[in-house]
């Protein structure tokens, strides 16, 4: 049956591609924002991994860490391994039956399901990648998301 597996595999692949695009970017790119008061690109990239750590905590209880903020290309490169590890955790759950979760949050117990966490993971990363690409273009940098879409993922997988 059709499942979330393709979406999660695409997520893992596109995260690797996306962070790689930032490995060689000049430092100032990581400070670009959509508008005053909005998060800069570096913070959004850090947030992608932070969210991944939160999903992992929700799913298997492993605590999140103090992530090094992404302020330049070399830190972005370090995130390749972090993202790969976090995305592997999501994939472990994609073919399991849905399950109710009781998550110990800062303000008490949060009730969720594995399906909610996995769906949020897929949607959230795509949204922020769209946002980051828009910020890049707004500031005159080229970042084309079409090579990171699901068609491209499958095309590349077929040719491996």
């Amino acid at each position, binding site marked *: 049956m*059709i*499942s979330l597996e393709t979406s999660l595999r695409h997520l893992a692949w596109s995260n690797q591609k996306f962070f790689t695009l930032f490995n060689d970017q000049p430092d100032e790119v990581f400070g670009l924002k959509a508008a005053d008061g909005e998060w800069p690109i570096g913070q959004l990239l850090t947030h992608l991994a932070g969210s991944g750590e939160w999903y992992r905590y929700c799913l298997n209880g492993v605590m999140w860490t103090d992530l090094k903020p992404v302020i330049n290309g070399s830190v972005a490169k370090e995130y390749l391994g972090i993202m790969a590890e976090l995305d592997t955790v999501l994939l472990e759950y994609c073919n399991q039956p849905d399950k109710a979760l009781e998550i110990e949050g800062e303000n008490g117990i949060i009730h969720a399901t594995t399906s909610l966490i996995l769906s949020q993971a897929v949607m959230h990363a795509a949204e922020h990648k769209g946002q980051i690409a828009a910020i890049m273009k707004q500031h005159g940098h080229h970042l084309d998301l079409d090579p990171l879409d699901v068609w491209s993922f499958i095309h590349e997988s077929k040719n491996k």
Partner: protein
Amino acid sequence: MSNSALVTLFKHMSWANHSVFTALSELPEEALTLTAWDPEWKVGGIANHIVMAQPRLLARLKKEEAPADIDFPLTSQGMKDLADHSLKNDAAFLAWIDQPEEMLTFNRFGNTVSFLNTTVVAQIVHHATEHRAQIADILEVNKISTIRLDSLDLWSYERAHR
């Protein structure tokens, strides 16, 4: 049996699409022609792009010819109609995703290609999500903070549907 994570993802997409398009219908009409980096890529045009893709992708899943595109005017009423149309298309997706995996062959940009139906399904959500973020960003650049993406996440969806 439906995959519950996939159903959640599609129900959320339907709700988030409709929320964004409804928000657009409530903005001053000038906002629908705002742009950021590309003068041709207008807020209302991107909304049309999301909704135009829906019947094309659905037709691929159903092995049918894609219907003719409907271009909704960049007016408040146009965005209301687009929001209604999106809701119908998204309901049609939801009724169709409970399928066995299958290879599909269809025309894409003039080429005959083959992809699994799971790929089409994944692309439907990915495409809409990316472009909703673009709409929010272009409005933000133009100092309109109406669409807050944090209030359109899965947690918010779940809270709104308890």
